[in-house]
C-alpha cells in the first residue's frame, strides 16, 4: 500500500508547486473579492473601504447590460452553429471519400492558428472595398457592407470568426465519437431497410449525445474566455456593439485604470464560470446515469 508522505518530500513535491498555483489562481480570485469592496487609491488618498458601492455601480451600469447581452447572444449564436458544422464536417471526413485528407486539413487548420492570426486574416477578409467579403457582394451586385464598422453587423461578424476557429476542433471530438459507433447497429438498421438519413437521426445522433454535451459546455466556457479577436478587430466597438465580458474587464482595468471596478467585474466572471461548472457537473453526472 502507499506510504505516508514524508515531510521533506511533501515540501518539494507538493508545497512548492502548489504555492505557485495558489498565488496565481486562488489568491487573485479571493483578492478580487476583497478589492471589490474598496475604491481606487489616488495620489492624494489611499483606497478606502466602500462596502457594496462597486456592486451598486455594477447594477446601474448600462454598458455592462449591453456587454452581458452581447456575451449571451454570442454564446447562444456561436455554439449551436459550430456544433452543427462540426457534426457535418465529421460525417464528411469519416465517410472516407476521395479527398478526405484535404477536407480534414481545411477544417482543422483554423484551430491551429493563433486567435490573433485568425483575427488578422478576417480583418482583411472583412476590409471594406479590398476584402474578399465585399468583393463577393459586389460580384452579385449587392451594396458593400461595413461588417466591423456598423453596430448591426459587428457582433455577428465576430461570431463567424469564432465559429470558423472552433468548428474544426469540435470536429475532432465528433470524429472520435463517430468511430466508436458500432457497425453492427448500423448493419442491423440497414437490413431492416433504414436509409442513411434514418440511420443518422435514429442511431448515430443519439450516440453522439454525450459528445455534444461535453463540447457544448466547453464551448460555453471558451465563449467567455477568448477575446483576442475583439481586441484586434473592433476594440468592442462601434458603440460597445461587439464588447464581450472579458474584453470589458480588460478595457475597464487597463484603459480606464479602474482597478476596483475591474475586480468587481472579475468577481462577476468567476461566479458566472462557477455556475457554468456546476451545471456541467450536474449534466455530466446525469449523462453517466443515462448510459
Amino acid at each position, binding site marked *: 500500500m502507499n506510504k505516508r508522505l514524508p515531510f521533506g518530500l511533501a515540501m518539494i513535491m*507538493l508545497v512548492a508547486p502548489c504555492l505557485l498555483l495558489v498565488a496565481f489562481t486562488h*489568491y*487573485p480570485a479571493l483578492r*478580487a473579492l476583497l478589492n471589490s469592496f474598496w475604491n481606487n487609491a489616488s495620489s492624494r488618498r489611499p483606497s478606502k473601504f466602500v462596502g457594496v458601492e462597486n456592486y451598486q455601480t455594477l447594477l446601474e451600469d448600462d454598458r455592462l447590460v449591453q456587454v452581458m447581452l452581447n456575451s449571451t447572444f454570442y454564446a447562444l449564436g456561436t455554439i449551436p452553429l459550430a456544433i452543427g458544422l462540426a457534426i457535418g464536417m465529421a460525417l464528411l471526413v469519416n465517410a472516407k471519400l476521395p*479527398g478526405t485528407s484535404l477536407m480534414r486539413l481545411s477544417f482543422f487548420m483554423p484551430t491551429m492558428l493563433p486567435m490573433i492570426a485568425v483575427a488578422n486574416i478576417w480583418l482583411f477578409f472583412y476590409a471594406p472595398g479590398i476584402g474578399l467579403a465585399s468583393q463577393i457582394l459586389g460580384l452579385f451586385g449587392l451594396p458593400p457592407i461595413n461588417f466591423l464598422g456598423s453596430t448591426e453587423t459587428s457582433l455577428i461578424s465576430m461570431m463567424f470568426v469564432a465559429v470558423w476557429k472552433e468548428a474544426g476542433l469540435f470536429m475532432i*471530438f465528433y470524429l472520435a465519437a463517430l468511430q466508436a459507433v458500432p457497425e453492427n447497429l448500423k448493419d442491423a438498421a440497414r437490413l431492416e431497410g433504414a436509409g442513411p438519413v434514418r440511420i443518422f437521426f435514429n442511431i448515430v445522433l443519439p450516440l453522439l449525445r454525450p459528445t455534444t454535451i461535453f463540447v457544448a459546455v466547453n464551448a460555453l466556457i471558451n465563449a467567455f474566455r477568448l477575446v483576442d479577436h475583439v481586441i484586434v478587430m473592433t476594440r468592442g466597438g462601434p458603440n460597445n456593439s461587439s464588447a464581450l465580458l472579458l474584453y470589458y474587464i480588460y478595457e475597464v482595468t487597463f484603459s480606464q485604470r479602474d482597478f476596483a471596478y475591474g475586480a468587481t467585474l472579475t468577481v462577476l466572471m468567476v461566479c458566472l464560470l462557477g455556475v457554468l*461548472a456546476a451545471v456541467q457537473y450536474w449534466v455530466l453526472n446525469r449523462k453517466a446515469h443515462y448510459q
Partner: protein
Amino acid sequence: MTQGLNRIMWSTLGLLFAALWGLPFLYSVWTAFHDEIYSANFVWNAPITLENFFEAWQAAPFALYFLNTVILITIVLVANLILCTLVAYAFVRYRFRWAGFLFALIMVQLLISPEILIVENYLTLSKIGMIDTILGIALPYLTSAFGIFLLRQTFLTVPVSLDEAAQIEGAGAWRVLWNIYVPLAKPVYLAYALVSISFHWNNFLWPLIVTNSPEVRPVTVGLSVFATVESGVEWSLVNAATLMTTAPLIVAFVIFQRQFVANFMRAGIK
C-alpha cells in the same frame, strides 16, 4: 453504380465546402505572396514574390519576438514538466491528509484559468516588480492543473508490482520516479508538450497586458503591434507577417499531425 455516383457527388460537395472554409486563409496566403497591386484583383498568372516577407521581417524586430516566444515557451514547458510530474507523483504514490481536498483545489484552475484573473495577477506582478519581463508572462502558467491531471491519470496506470520490485532492489523515491514512472509516461509528455507549446505560442491577452517594450514581446503581441499601430501598413505586409508568425506552428502540425489530433482529444475527454 449509383453508389459510386453518390460518393462522387458527396466528395465534390465536401471539397467545395472545404474550399469555401479555407477561403479566408487562402485569400490571406494569396495576398502575402503577391505584390500589393494584386491585393484586390485576381490575375491567375500574377507573379509570385517573397518580397512581402522580407519587408515585413525588416519592418519590425520579428527575430527578437520569435526569440522571446521561444524563451517563454521553454520556461513554461520545463517548469510544467518538472512541477506537474512532482505533484502527480506525490498524489499517486503517497498517502497524506487532505489529498482529495487538495486535488479538488488544484482542479479549480481548469475552470478559473489565469486568463480570467488578469486584473489581480497584474497587480501581483507589479508588486513584485515583474511587469515587462518574460518570466512575468510565464509565472501564472508555471504549474498547470491540466498537466497534473493528465500525469496523475497516466501514473495511476503504472503497475504497482513494478514499483515494488524496484523498491526491493533498493531504489529510492527519486530513482523509481525517474526509471519507472517517467519512461512509461513518455507519450503523454510528448502530447502535453505539443498542446502546451501551441497554447503558449498563441496566447495573447496576458502577454499584451504584461509587456510594454519590444525586448520582451512574444510574436503574437509583436504581430498585433505591427498590424495596428502603423495604420499605413499595407495589407500584403500584414498578411505576410501573419503567416510568418504562424509558420512554425503549421509546420509542426504537419509533422506531428497524428499526435496533435490524438492530444486535442485527450485534452478534451477528461
